[in-house]
């Protein structure tokens, strides 16, 4: 566990030395700020629902950028050989990198707690939906990070990793949402579309914690981490 923690800490600190991470953070917070002030007017409902909805759209593009170098960079620079010969298992490497990226994601979201403080100053926020919204963001962030890590494990090119992860996340988040908004669907297609990210996340953003949705995000995250481990392992026998 200490090895995993060490790798996670190293990854996390490397983010704070990376200009790309800062750029992503600035863009994310500026976009969230714009979304927040749009609803921050006297007489408006004291809620963070729209900001939570916006966060997911932003994470679709920001997480792939943050995760693109996690393994792809190790492969392209050859440092993966050093890592693999060190006394660490593939699981520890993947889990460490995942936790490091998640740590940065939390750091990314942390400043938005200031919005909650402002809502408390100017109104009487209902804290339940805010807590569930943040829980949803953490779970969605974990899933997105796992997708980014998986794509990063598949290629040596960081650009390919970022684009493929963004495309995948776009496909499971934006497209089902768009389809549902534009077309009348058969009941079974409608049910299938509801299995994707946005519909499940919408519950968290409005203040409903459904154990089915929690299990979905955790299970999919674990599955992707497992597949990432298998991809990393495959370098030993390929």
């Amino acid at each position, binding site marked *: 566990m200490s090895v995993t923690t060490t790798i996670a800490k190293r990854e996390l600190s490397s983010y704070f030395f990376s200009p790309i991470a800062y750029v992503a953070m600035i863009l994310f917070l500026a976009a969230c700020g714009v979304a927040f002030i749009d609803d921050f007017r006297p007489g408006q409902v*004291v809620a963070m629902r729209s900001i939570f909805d916006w966060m997911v759209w932003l994470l679709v593009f920001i997480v792939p950028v943050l995760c693109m170098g996690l393994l792809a960079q190790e492969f392209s620079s050859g440092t993966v050989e050093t890592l693999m010969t060190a006394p660490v298992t593939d699981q520890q490497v993947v889990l460490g990198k995942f936790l490091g990226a998640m740590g940065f994601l939390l750091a990314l979201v942390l400043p938005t707690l200031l919005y909650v403080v402002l809502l408390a100053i100017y*109104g009487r926020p*209902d804290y339940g939906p805010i807590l569930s919204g943040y829980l949803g963001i953490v779970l969605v962030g974990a899933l997105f990070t796992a997708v980014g890590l998986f794509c990063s494990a598949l290629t040596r090119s960081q650009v390919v990793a970022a684009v493929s992860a963004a495309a995948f996340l776009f496909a499971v988040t934006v497209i089902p949402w768009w389809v549902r908004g534009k077309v009348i669907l058969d009941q079974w297609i409608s049910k299938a579309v509801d299995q994707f990210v946005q519909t499940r996340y919408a519950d968290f953003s409005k*203040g409903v914690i459904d154990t089915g949705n929690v*299990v979905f995000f955790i299970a999919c995250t674990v599955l992707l981490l*497992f597949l990432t481990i298998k991809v990393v392992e495959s370098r030993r026998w390929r």
Partner: protein
Amino acid sequence: MSQTKQPHADSQKKRWLKYGTNVAIVSLVAIAICALVVAISQMTGRRLDTTSQRIYSLKPQTQNVLRDLKGKLRIVSLYSTQTKPDSRSDPEGRFAADDWPSYVQTVSDLLQEYKRTNANIDVELIDPVNSPAKVDGLIAEVTSRYGGEVKKYQGFIDQYPKQLEQIKKMANEEATAIGKLSTQEIANQDVLETLQLSADTVAGFPPLLDRNQEAIQKILKQKPPDYKGAVDVTQQAMDTLSAMLSQIIDGFEKLKADVSVPPTIRQYMVDSTPRYAAIKKSADDLLKQIKDLGELKLDDLRQSLRQQNTILVLGQSDLKVIPFNKVWQEPADMRGYASDVTLKPRFAGEQQVTSAIVSLTREKKQRVVIVRPDGAPLASPGFPPFVPGGPMSQAGARLTDLNYEVLEKDLSGTYAMQAQMQQMPSAPDATDEQMKDALWVVMAFPASQQRNPMMQQPPAPLAQKLQEHLDAGGSAVVLISPGLGGEAPDLSAALKPRGIVASTNAVIVHEAMQDDQQTGDQLDQARRLPFIFDINQYGDTLMTRPLRSLASLMVPLVPVSTEPAKGYTVTPIIPIPQNVKTWGETDIDALSKGQPSKFDPAVDQASPGFAGAISQAEKGGRLVVIGSPTFMFNRYLEIPEPTLARRGTYVSRFPGNAELFVNSVLWASGQDALLAISPAAMEVSRLRDMGNGELAMVRVLIVGGIPAIVLLAGVMVYLKRRD
């Protein structure tokens, strides 16, 4: 070299096959396990609504309804973020443009909860402005689902022009004939007017019908086609034509025997009457065909698209349209409670959608008859704001929403007669046949001495009628009144055999509360009066259990007791609060004059235990007796919760009044599945007012400040690492 490479290539291939297959199988198993875990969690999952008002949790009544739902249902929201109610329909500006999306979202969230609760419900959110293609799809779906009616209308519209042509041809021929008549010799004004009417009718109608045809073609090009509107245009024309022809034929019949009329004119009248009758017959035939067309569901959809922001509930064979003003209800008049705030509309979406589902899925519409001794109807809705509804119009509306047919019966028969004499509209009373299988809500008020002089015999006593109804297996909710200002009807003949005794000679009172400080609002002070009770316990029965701890205001209460009755299960309800001394005061007149009451053990009833009872016959009839005659009147239901009223939100202060009445009707009519608290109002917190400078500062901090701090941190890290 090649000899050494060959075995290596083979071994790599083998390794690929070996490990690759292994990884593929393990990965597939992992995916399968993941899918299984998600599916199981989905099926057995729990939902935690973290909002303080539990606004995303369907209320128990809805859950009961959805639990029993078997067939497929489709709920469609036609709310658009771009079509906020205009100033005409929202003069007080309750729906601010900035806030409007939250109203749309609230409806969307509610419908998603229905979908989640029952797999048989499909929900579609269609923004008619943004997604016109989806609206077209919906129109096609509704047209095909309720196609039978549309086909009838289409068939009529296709074939009626032939009949119209025939009418036009006959009218044109008649116009030619009448044009040949000379009217110079006619001195009789009636003859001239009748001939003029004839000429105008036969000459004027063909071009009018042509113009109507053009209008109809335009109407049919609407989306969806307004078949009903097209038929209405024809109906209006035919109605007018038929009426004018009747007038002409009557005039001819009268004048053709008049010798002062020139012979040529009289001959024309004789000859032309059958021709006019033929035209009239054609018009009447068309009218009959129109009448036989029946309702058009597509028209409901068309209306709902025109109204904007409606919800459609599509059942197996019928659809319900829930208009905007039913979902977002105007708050009750709260002058005196919150005069300085603009009240937000009350969200009644869940109640409306659930009621629509009940009405679409219930096999038979049940009938409730409100039986009163005399006087004006109690539950008539009126025509607000011009004609106020009856004193229990809200309770009547709640029952109508739950798919009950609500009728009324005036036992004295005087009101209908008086209304007729004053030429006032009056809904017809329930017939004896209608009352047979209905649930009776008996208002046991003291009857006035008025009686319909046209009635040969005085009406049968209420007790006798009620007894006959109950003996025949019927059910009833009886609201007992004390003998205030007249003799209260003695219903003991009907109630006693069923184990219920109502003491109409007494009113339950509590000890006068001494409070020099006179704190609280007027209502708090009123509750200190001895005959006013604030009830929040209703007894432990299937009917009253869901109401536990809901507040209600009861003025006055009549003691009701129970005794064993063979063949009936009798249970007392509405226990009288025991935290103060109570008794059944028999000096009702003194009480009504505001004189202080004191317990007199010789005549008063000591410690009455209950103010209601329910009795269920083994054979199935159910009886509810509540010792309060007016507790469900609008004046009690409309009292707002003052704290929330000051924040601009209407919530009933005594929700128990309406719930007790509705649950009584539901239980007595055997609708046990619906026994629950109905959906309540919702309340949200809003941002307080702030100055422009303050707002600008916050905005700068949010959009510029936080990213700037991150940028600064990045620059500092960069500079430190460079050094």
